């Protein structure tokens, strides 16, 4: 989105004022409306499609494979693809690396099938279009797709260290995957104000961006700052970080709740 100098200045001033006035009248902690469809890909174990109100759209698919976890202990693998960006572009690689770090917070014991074998989850993310930073959208997509993931039911013995057999699964029954997926919140900083989910026009004037991850009541790593635009980037008061953490801790449970109820 390209704004004129006058528009930017107006927007900046209103966001920087106290209390800040957001262009769409949202509150500091308020998200834009999102639409989520889950389980729409028949060939994957879990999937979701998420559409933000500004037309940003992202598809996530979860597929599973049985691996020997004594050999391969990397049980969650994520691949991010952003339409219009090369695979080795800075943004795509950073997103992939970021989410791989984020998913280390998932308890992989939940994926364990037997003493020797585990499910390995392959999470493929495709960002079809994005008008503002896609990180938050992707994390919601991953959250809802992991929430609706069901995996085949194990019928063979759990203890297979001594017995030589491969895990056997039920022909039809599936078990819902019970994991706590993490969420990522993007916060925009304008002067001394901080607010959740900056829209494209807000990103354009923001002084900085803060990314905070959250899992089941805990604020976790990775936490990062990143510029939301390349012209307005500036430093900010250290207090805003604490304020951001507080904001996330307060409202994240509601969001997780909302996503769970889909």
């Amino acid at each position, binding site marked *: 989105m390209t704004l004129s100098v006058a528009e930017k200045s107006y927007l900046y001033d209103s966001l920087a004022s106290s209390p800040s006035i957001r262009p769409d009248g949202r509150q500091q902690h308020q998200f834009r409306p999102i639409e989520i469809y889950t389980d729409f890909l028949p060939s994957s174990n879990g999937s979701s499609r998420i559409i933000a109100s500004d037309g940003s759209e992202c598809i996530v698919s979860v597929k599973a494979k049985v691996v020997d976890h004594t050999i391969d202990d990397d049980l969650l693998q994520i691949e991010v693809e952003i339409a219009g960006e090369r695979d*080795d572009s800075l943004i795509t690689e950073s997103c992939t690396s970021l989410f791989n770090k984020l998913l280390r917070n998932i308890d992989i014991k939940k994926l364990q099938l037997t003493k020797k074998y585990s499910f390995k989850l392959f999470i493929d993310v495709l960002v079809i279009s994005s008008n503002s930073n896609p990180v938050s959208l992707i994390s919601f997509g991953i959250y809802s797709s992991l929430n609706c993931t069901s995996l085949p039911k194990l019928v063979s013995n759990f203890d297979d260290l001594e017995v030589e057999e491969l895990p056997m699964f039920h022909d039809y029954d599936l078990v819902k995957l019970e994991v706590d997926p993490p969420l990522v919140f993007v916060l925009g900083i304008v002067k001394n104000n901080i607010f959740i989910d900056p829209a494209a026009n807000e990103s354009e004037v923001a002084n900085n961006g803060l990314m905070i991850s959250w899992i089941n009541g805990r604020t976790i790593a*990775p936490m990062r*700052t990143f510029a939301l635009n390349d012209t307005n980037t500036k430093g900010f*008061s250290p207090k805003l970080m604490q304020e951001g953490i507080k904001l996330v801790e307060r409202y994240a449970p509601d969001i997780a709740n909302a996503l769970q109820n889909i």
Partner: protein
Amino acid sequence: MNVQDRRRILGPIEAKPLAFPETKSTSNEETTVVLPEFQAPSIQTNLLKNCNGSCIIENENTSILSSIYGPRSTRSNLFESRCLINVTIKSAVFPTSELKELSSFLINVLESFVCLELYPKAGIDVFINLNIEQVSDLSWYIPYIMMSIVLGLVDAGIEISDLPGCGFNDNNAICFTKNGSEVIGIWRDKGDIKDESSFGDSLDICKDQYLQIKGLMASYLLSKLDDDKST
């Protein structure tokens, strides 16, 4: 992926890398490993002749070399009213995607203190070479990397608005400017944030470290200035 780069002599494809047995205690060690405290490194600038500025930061097990090229003309045909910054980090130890993530973080940090408006239609390329012997977390290196970039920029004569720096504590690498009154970047890779006050404590420690680093950089630059005058 199974296409080999024929321009380079990479050796037989079947060869496997040397594998060292996993030490049994790795998992315990990982949690208790204490990252070494900040050590004042040795600094040297202006050592490479084919770039505009360079700086090497060395301590016992690490040497970080930054080379700054620019401001120089960019290949893009568009008129850019500000300078474009690019950061490339090379290291054999960390995976490329992680290095790219760090580069994009550093670009954002640089954008907040380099006077980009002064160099329209130009680009500044920053190359970082990490030669690491004893491996810590990537975030542990950020203070040193920042230091080498800042001094490299000074060496290249590129105008910056302040001498920013970065401190590291409790997995937080926090970059400050303006004597610690402003944060320009935070990078945290692992560990939960228990509560705000512990985070605040770690913030203060990082700030102290930043002031220490700033002092080091300033005294280095001043002594260099004196040397230049006397010669």
